[in-house]
């Protein structure tokens, strides 16, 4: 384990060589907004919200998958970054039907919270208004594809924490969809263990406990980190 020294937003930071920019920043108390990242689950760098500027690199880099290096100069906030982050959010809001007023996750939604943080007071792009299904066939949980942002957190926890592989992404592009098994009603899945980790992982109101109504759906994300730490490090930190 070798340490690396870098600066993040002008602040001197030291981090292990295996650390990502996001981890180094979080340790140093610097907040980088994220969306597809989830503590305890491996990162995919898909949502592009955590993009940061690194001196000497022309491209913007995702903080969640980019490793620190010696002498790296990172900027996590700039007018340009804020503009791009806000646009990314607007694209998401326009893509499917995120109607906060009638959402189980209203008030407990990472997408919504991010919109507030980034000052997104309206969406400049035309709403697509697709018609996606709501899958209510599972005895315990529901899935509203209209609220899905395809971050694939549920897929990752289902594969890598629970190990069941029930969830995956089907199709591609804007027609991508989270599926259970062979794209069958969730309630008919042969592999779902009903563990509920996907529901815990979901940042929006797409996956929810049955019976939750508007604004009721809170999640306990620390559970996931707890399981992973217990499994990998044999440390049970409740």
């Amino acid at each position: 384990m070798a340490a690396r020294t870098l600066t993040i937003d002008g602040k001197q930071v030291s981090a292990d060589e295996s650390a990502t920019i996001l981890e180094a920043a979080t340790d140093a108390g610097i907040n980088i907004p994220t969306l597809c990242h989830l503590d305890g689950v491996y990162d995919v760098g898909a949502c592009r919200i955590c993009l940061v500027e690194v001196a000497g690199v022309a491209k913007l880099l995702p903080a969640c998958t980019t490793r620190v290096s010696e002498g790296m100069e990172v900027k996590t906030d700039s007018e340009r970054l804020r503009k791009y982050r806000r646009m990314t959010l607007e694209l998401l809001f326009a893509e499917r039907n995120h109607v906060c007023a009638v959402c189980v996750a209203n008030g407990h939604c990472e997408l919504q919270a991010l919109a507030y943080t980034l000052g997104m007071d309206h969406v400049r792009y035309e709403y697509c208004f697709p018609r996606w299904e709501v899958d209510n066939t599972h005895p315990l949980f529901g899935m509203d594809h209209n609220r899905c942002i395809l971050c694939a957190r549920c897929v990752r926890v289902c594969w890598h924490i629970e190990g069941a592989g029930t969830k995956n992404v089907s199709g591609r592009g804007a027609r991508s969809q989270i599926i259970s098994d062979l794209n069958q009603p969730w309630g008919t899945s042969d592999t779902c263990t009903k563990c509920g980790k996907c529901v815990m992982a979901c940042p929006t109101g797409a996956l929810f406990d049955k019976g939750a109504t508007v604004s009721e759906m809170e999640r306990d994300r620390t559970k996931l980190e707890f399981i992973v730490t217990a499994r990998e490090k044999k440390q049970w930190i409740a």
Partner: protein
Amino acid sequence: MTATLLSKKQNRLPRILEHASGDKRFKILEAHMKKHQFKHDALIEVLHKAQELFGFLEDDLLLFIAYKLKLPASRVYGVATFYHFFTLKPKGRHTCVVCMGTACYVKGADKVLAAIEEHAGIKAGETTPDNQVSLLTARCIGACGIAPAVVYDGTVTPRQTPETALEQLKGWTGHGH
């Protein structure tokens, strides 16, 4: 409602395996998987073979592949739907693939496609209700030198016009309806 759905939840595998045992195509498919040592990374090759044998990838077939390769069904389905080449629905007796590559496009492939769509009464990606013709588009078949090209039942045909395309289609349907 949940109860009725859950009552449907049952292991489909035994039925599929039983059905497969009586179908030679499954044997050929399994031999192909064996050739690849049932490795996970052979999934796409196996799907190619399955589609070649069965014409399209229906759920039972995907489940059979998942079982034999020891992969989650969701992974097999995710891969099968990612790639354009795989189709989960049966195709018509004839297939007509209009190349919509740039060269074909600037030379009027859009007009050829429009003419076929109007004649057959279907959109690209669909099959006529009588199951005679499936109409598809391709993202460049690399026949740009002879644009616009259309592939009729696997035969690349050069320099198509709405008229030549309709002639071909009418030949398939037997009469010009």
